Every structure is written in structure tokens, then in C-alpha cells.
């Protein structure tokens, strides 16, 4: 199939194209759109929470609905918004940064996406079928195992399905980075974003199985009468907490590390300097990933693990501040002596430094195990992790989207609107969350549906709610910008920022085979190296020849659809065994699709040299 033919087709054909695509760039679009949609849903839930807490004794929503809101807000934002948006960036950028034509397993890439999407849909269907999960995003047993209705069942099945997708994605990127690098792209020449994706994928590989097991145990307890968390039959509820946090703490680093990588690329590009202390940065990234596995129990200081365990985990947690500090200083010194260009992407990155530093500082305070007896499960913690996740992850996503938008869509997001979106969001963010630290210490526990009059919490909560509205305004301006840009802005060249890494050496958006000829990498910041040598672009590492590309397939979609159907079967077979039909039908579809994939040879197709020459004439060679 030549690219020229693919241009003009109807809507139906386009939908079919996206349903079956295995192209990492299109999968990035899918992740971006669905992650963005879930981000809006999660944001809406946040607004409802803040409206409820606007004044004391408020009755905007009922207590039960409030618990559903906080649960779904947390779950949605972590699993269905932040993770897929990061996967969107990974898909859009990593193969380009290492000079590859696609990821190692295009088929699995697509499967990972569809599993995530169906898992996410499953979770949100619960709103319409009698109540969403309501035991908090941490879903502690036995509150979750005894929660009436099917809400928690949706949590279990939805996360199990989307978690499988994430695990597949993680392995895929690991192999991609290990095996698919262009000639000369050694590990120590990889852009920091690619490095951080590598570490993140490792964390995914080791963290998600713990969640998988936890969810299985929860599923067995709720749907098949086992007794893991049933103290009456000798179960132990602390098992869930450990399994959840063995997964949950690395998850925090899974979220933040890729954006650390993105910030590194952005700071370096817009300061026109190579990253200060590159090897220290790589080392710090790896170290954060490593330590990330040793500290999960700091979420459980008040559970009663005893002073020895608490002390060990406290000190281990504090240690993470060191590599994080190294990163902050290296970013500052990357800008030191540079030519700082204040684009929107840079603005978000600049704003990230103080915000994240505050988040890190409160993190160290929380690490002091004893002091956590006061902080734990209060608004202090809420303030802390929003400083890290909004100030780090969300700022990072905005920065990275502004930075790579031209690479993904061929147009630079409007700079004026970009900056206009930034200010209300930034100010609103600090208004919302800074005050929450104090609210917590003044006696406001987390996950409170109402607070009482006369507890001195009125003003703080009102300020917090006002801030939330400002953040909503910022988000709306950003969405406006996306629409405005797609309608009004003009196409730009492949390298609008005077970039340094490989993705900027090819057209925007890239042709579906990315590189006409695999580039030869001659150093860190390979494109910059060539530019400094006065060259136009990369030197090819191979002669022009046929390119082998994978075939599109609908099977990832059907495999995921099968798990979706089976998920409903599992949930409702408790009420009526007839639903077992759905289990068998769904599993049949999934396993049948897998079998088809397994026995049907799929050797991909070739793009012929003549077509490539045709494309080069149209500018694909640059």
C-alpha cells in the first residue's frame, strides 16, 4: 500500500484504519484522544468533589455518590488519563528518537491500546449500571470486599484488563529500545526521554504483576467466595495493602519518570545546550527506578508494621530525594549559560521546577515515619501528591504535548493561546493545592464528604475550590487551542524548534515508515552533531532499498473486545449463572482471535524502492 493512496478516503475507511492500525504514530493518536477524554471525565469528577467541599455541611451530592466520585477520580486520572497520555508520547516519540521504523511488536502495541481502552470503558460503564466503585482508588479490603452492588467488581475487571494492556506495552517498549536502535545509537547516546521510557517500562514489567495478583485475589473473594481478605475464615486484609502498594509506589515513578525525560529534552532544546550532566541524569533515573521498589510501605506507616519496618522504609524513602535533587540541579545548570527561549513548552517546564520541588519537599516530610502519623490520610497528603502529579505529570504532559505536537500533527500549537492557557492553570493549581497542606494539619482528613462548621476549615476549602475552577478554565483554553490550531494554523517543517534528537530529522508528521533510510548516529544529540558539522540532515546508514512493514490487523480489537464481554460475564454470573454464557463467549472470542493470530502467517509487506523515491521527491527524505 503506498502512502499516496492512503490520503483520501471516507470516514468509514478512516475508522477501520484506526481500528486495525499497527502504526505506532496512529496508536499514539488513539492513546492521546482516549486518554484526553478520560482526563476530561476525571477533571469533571474533580470539579464535583470541589463543589461539594466548597462550604461546610454542603449537600451538593450524597455521601455514597461522593465516595464514587473520589474513587473514580483517582482511578481515572492515574490509570485512564495519565498512563495513556504517557503511552501516547512514548508511541509518538520513542521509535523516532532511536531511529526505528516501528516498535518491536506493532501487533502487540495495538493490542495494548485496545485492552487499555476496553478496561477504561468497563470502569466507566459502572456509572450507568447501578453505581461506580466506592472504596477509594486504593480499594482497601475489607471495605472493598464488602462493598454492596457491583461497583468494585467493575474496578477489578476494568483494571485487570487495562493493566494487561499496560504490561504488554511495557515489554514492547523495553524490547524496542534494546533491539531496534539505529546504528551508532548506543545506550549512552539515547535521549533522556528514551532512557526514562526504558526505566519506566522496567518498572511496569515488575510492578504490574503484583497488581494483577492483587486484583485476582480481590476478584476471587468477591465473585467466587474465596477467603483471602475474609478475617472470619482466617484471611488477612493487610495482604491487599502490600500488593497494592508494591505495585502502587512504582506506579508513581512510572508516571513521573517519562516526563522527567521529556523535561530534559525540552530544557536542552530551548536552552540550545546539551543536557548538563547527561550521565548523572541517566544514573539518577535508574536509581529512582531502583529505589522506587523499596519504599512502598511508606504508604502504610500507620498500619502498624512496627517501628523497625517503619524506620527502614522511612530512610529508604528519604534516599529518593538525592537522585531527584540531582535532576533538579542538572536542569537548572542546563539552562545556565544557555539561550532560553520562552515557548509554551518551556513555560510549562519552567513552572514545573518550583512546583515539583515543593512536592518533593513535602514528600521528604511525609517520609519521616513518625510525623506521618499526623500527615497520613489528611489533606496534607492530598496536597503533596497533587503537587507531584499535577505539578510534575500534568505540567509535563502539557509541556511535552506543546513540544511534540508539531511532530505528531505537523502544526505548532498556537503560542499565544498556549500561554493564555498556562496562567490560569498554574495559578489555579497553586491556589487549589497549597492551602490543602494546611487544611490537613488543621484537622481535615482525606476523603471527607463534608467538613463541619466551626472547625476553621471554611476559608481554605473555598480558596481550594476557586483554584479548581481556574484550572478548569486553563484546560478549556488548551482544548480551544487544539481546535484552533487544527483549523487555522499552517503546516510547519520537520524541525520547528531547532531540535537536537533524531525525531526532528524527518518530516512532520513522519511518513508511516518514519525513516527512508536508517540514520547513522554519531553522538549524543545526533541531529545537533550533524548541524554543527554544517550538514542538512542525518547521514544514512544503509542504501535506499525496500522497507519491510507489518500488516494491519483487526485481531487486537477482537481479542480486547472478548475480554470486555467476558468481564461483564464474570461480574454478573454472581447474580445469575446465565451470565456464564458471556464469560464463555468472550473468552472464546479472545482465545479464538489469539489462535487465529498464532496459526495464520503474517509476514508483513514491503514498501518498494520506487515508491520511496516517489516520496522523496515529495519531501520525505528530509
Amino acid at each position, binding site marked *: 500500500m503506498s502512502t499516496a493512496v492512503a490520503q483520501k478516503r471516507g470516514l468509514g475507511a478512516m475508522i477501520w484504519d484506526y481500528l486495525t492500525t499497527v502504526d505506532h504514530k496512529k496508536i499514539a493518536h488513539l492513546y492521546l484522544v482516549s486518554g484526553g477524554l478520560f482526563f476530561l471525565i476525571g477533571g469533571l469528577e474533580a470539579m464535583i468533589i470541589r463543589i461539594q467541599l466548597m462550604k461546610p455541611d454542603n449537600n451538593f451530592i450524597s455521601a455514597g455518590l461522593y465516595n464514587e466520585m473520589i474513587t473514580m477520580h483517582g482511578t481515572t486520572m492515574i490509570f485512564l488519563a495519565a498512563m495513556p497520555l504517557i503511552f501516547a508520547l512514548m508511541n509518538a516519540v520513542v521509535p523516532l528518537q532511536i531511529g526505528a521504523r516501528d516498535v518491536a511488536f506493532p501487533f502487540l502495541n495495538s493490542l495494548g491500546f485496545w485492552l487499555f481502552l476496553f478496561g477504561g470503558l468497563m470502569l466507566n460503564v459502572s456509572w450507568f449500571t447501578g453505581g461506580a466503585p466506592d472504596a477509594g482508588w486504593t480499594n482497601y479490603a475489607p471495605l472493598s470486599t464488602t462493598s454492596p452492588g457491583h461497583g468494585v467488581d467493575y474496578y477489578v475487571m476494568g483494571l485487570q484488563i487495562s493493566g494487561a494492556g499496560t504490561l504488554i506495552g511495557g515489554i514492547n517498549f523495553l524490547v524496542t529500545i534494546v533491539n531496534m536502535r539505529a546504528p551508532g545509537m548506543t545506550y549512552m547516546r539515547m535521549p533522556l526521554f528514551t532512557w526514562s521510557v526504558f526505566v519506566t517500562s*522496567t518498572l511496569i*514489567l515488575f510492578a504490574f504483576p503484583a497488581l494483577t495478583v492483587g486484583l485476582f485475589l480481590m476478584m476471587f473473594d468477591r465473585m467466587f467466595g474465596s477467603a483471602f481478605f475474609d478475617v472470619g475464615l482466617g484471611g488477612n486484609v*493487610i*495482604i491487599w495493602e*502490600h500488593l497494592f502498594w508494591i505495585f502502587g509506589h512504582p506506579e508513581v515513578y512510572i508516571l513521573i519518570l517519562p516526563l522527567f525525560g521529556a523535561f530534559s529534552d525540552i530544557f536542552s532544546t530551548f536552552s540550545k545546550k546539551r543536557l548538563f550532566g547527561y550521565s548523572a541524569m541517566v544514573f539518577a533515573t535508574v536509581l529512582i527506578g531502583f529505589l522506587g521498589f523499596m519504599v512502598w*510501605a511508606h504508604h502504610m506507616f500507620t498500619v502498624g508494621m512496627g517501628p523497625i*519496618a517503619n524506620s527502614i522504609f522511612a530512610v529508604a524513602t528519604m534516599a529518593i530525594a538525592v537522585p531527584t535533587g540531582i535532576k533538579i540541579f542538572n536542569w537548572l545548570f542546563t539552562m545556565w549559560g544557555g539561550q532560553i527561549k520562552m515557548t509554551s513548552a518551556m513555560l510549562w517546564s519552567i513552572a514545573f521546577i518550583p512546583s515539583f520541588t515543593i512536592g518533593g519537599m513535602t514528600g521528604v516530610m511525609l517520609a519521616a515515619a513518625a510525623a506521618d502519623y499526623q500527615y497520613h490520610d489528611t489533606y496534607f497528603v492530598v496536597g503533596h501528591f497533587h503537587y507531584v502529579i499535577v505539578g510534575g505529570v500534568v505540567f509535563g504532559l502539557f509541556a511535552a504535548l506543546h513540544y511534540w505536537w508539531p511532530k505528531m500533527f505537523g502544526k505548532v500549537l498556537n503560542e499565544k493561546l498556549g500561554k493564555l492557557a498556562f496562567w490560569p492553570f498554574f495559578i489555579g493549581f497553586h491556589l487549589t493545592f497549597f492551602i490543602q497542606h494546611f487544611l490537613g494539619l488543621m484537622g481535615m482528613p482525606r476523603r471527607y464528604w463534608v467538613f463541619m462548621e466551626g472547625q476553621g476549615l471554611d476559608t481554605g476549602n473555598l480558596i481550594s475550590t476557586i483554584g479548581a475552577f481556574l484550572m478548569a478554565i486553563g484546560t478549556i483554553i488548551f482544548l480551544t487551542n487544539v481546535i484552533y490550531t487544527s483549523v487555522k494554523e499552517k503546516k510547519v517543517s520537520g524541525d520547528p524548534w531547532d531540535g537536537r534528537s533524531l525525531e526532528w530529522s524527518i518530516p512532520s508528521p513522519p511518513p508511516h515508515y518514519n525513516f527512508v533510510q536508517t540514520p547513522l548516529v554519531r553522538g549524543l544529540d545526533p541531529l545537533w552533531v550533524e548541524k554543527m558539522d554544517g550538514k542538512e540532515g542525518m547521514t544514512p546508514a544503509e542504501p535506499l532499498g525496500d522497507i519491510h512493514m507489518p500488516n494491519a490487523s483487526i485481531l487486537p480489537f477482537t481479542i480486547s473486545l472478548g475480554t470486555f464481554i467476558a468481564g461483564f460475564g464474570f461480574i454478573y454470573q454472581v447474580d445469575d449463572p446465565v451470565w456464564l454464557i458471556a464469560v464463555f463467549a468472550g473468552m472464546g472470542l479472545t482465545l479464538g482471535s489469539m489462535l487465529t493470530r498464532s496459526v495464520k502467517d503474517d509476514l508483513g509487506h514491503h514498501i518498494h524502492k520506487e515508491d520511496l523515491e516517489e516520496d522523496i521527491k515529495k519531501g520525505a527524505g528530509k
Partner: protein
Amino acid sequence: MADNTHSKPVHQREFEKKQHREEMKQQVLTFALMILFTLIAFGMVIMEINSYFVIPTLIILAVVQVAFQLYYFMHMKNKGHDMVAMMMYGGAAVAGLTIITFVSIVWW
């Protein structure tokens, strides 16, 4: 890549076959040791030796057996398994931490 798919000289093929046979011998030896370890493990339990001694020994025997599996049967000792070994060690480290946790601080 393409070069090693073309037909090879006979002597090289013979050499490779010999190499495979050597490796196979090692693997059969490994298997024999694994069977032996299993027999010792079961034997100790059947003879009801003091459990303070038996439990650590059982665990050591199991770990050695597993190392045999990984390094000989699954070829982790061979070249080109650096990344593989790294990830398996990583997995083993997390696995170890998890198990230590569950036998120590999931208390009663």
C-alpha cells in the same frame, strides 16, 4: 544477518554439531543432579529430620535447581543473555522483597 543463512562449509557444520552434543551432555548431567537434589529433598522430609535444618536446606536445594534450569536448560549462561540476566535478576530481587515482606510484616 543475511550472510549466516547461506550454506556453510561442511567442517563448520560438523563443528557446530559437536558443540551441540557437548552442550547436550552438560544438560543431561544437570538433569541427573536435579533428580538427585529432588530425591534428597523428599528423602529429608520423609525421614523427618529436624525442621530447623531441613527448611533452609530445602530452600537452598530449590534455588540451586532453579539456577540449573535457568542457566543450563534455558541457556542463560550463553552469550547474548546480558539483558535477559539483568531482567531476571530484577524480577528475582522484587520477588525476594515481596516474599520477605509477606513472611515478616503481614503480621498476626
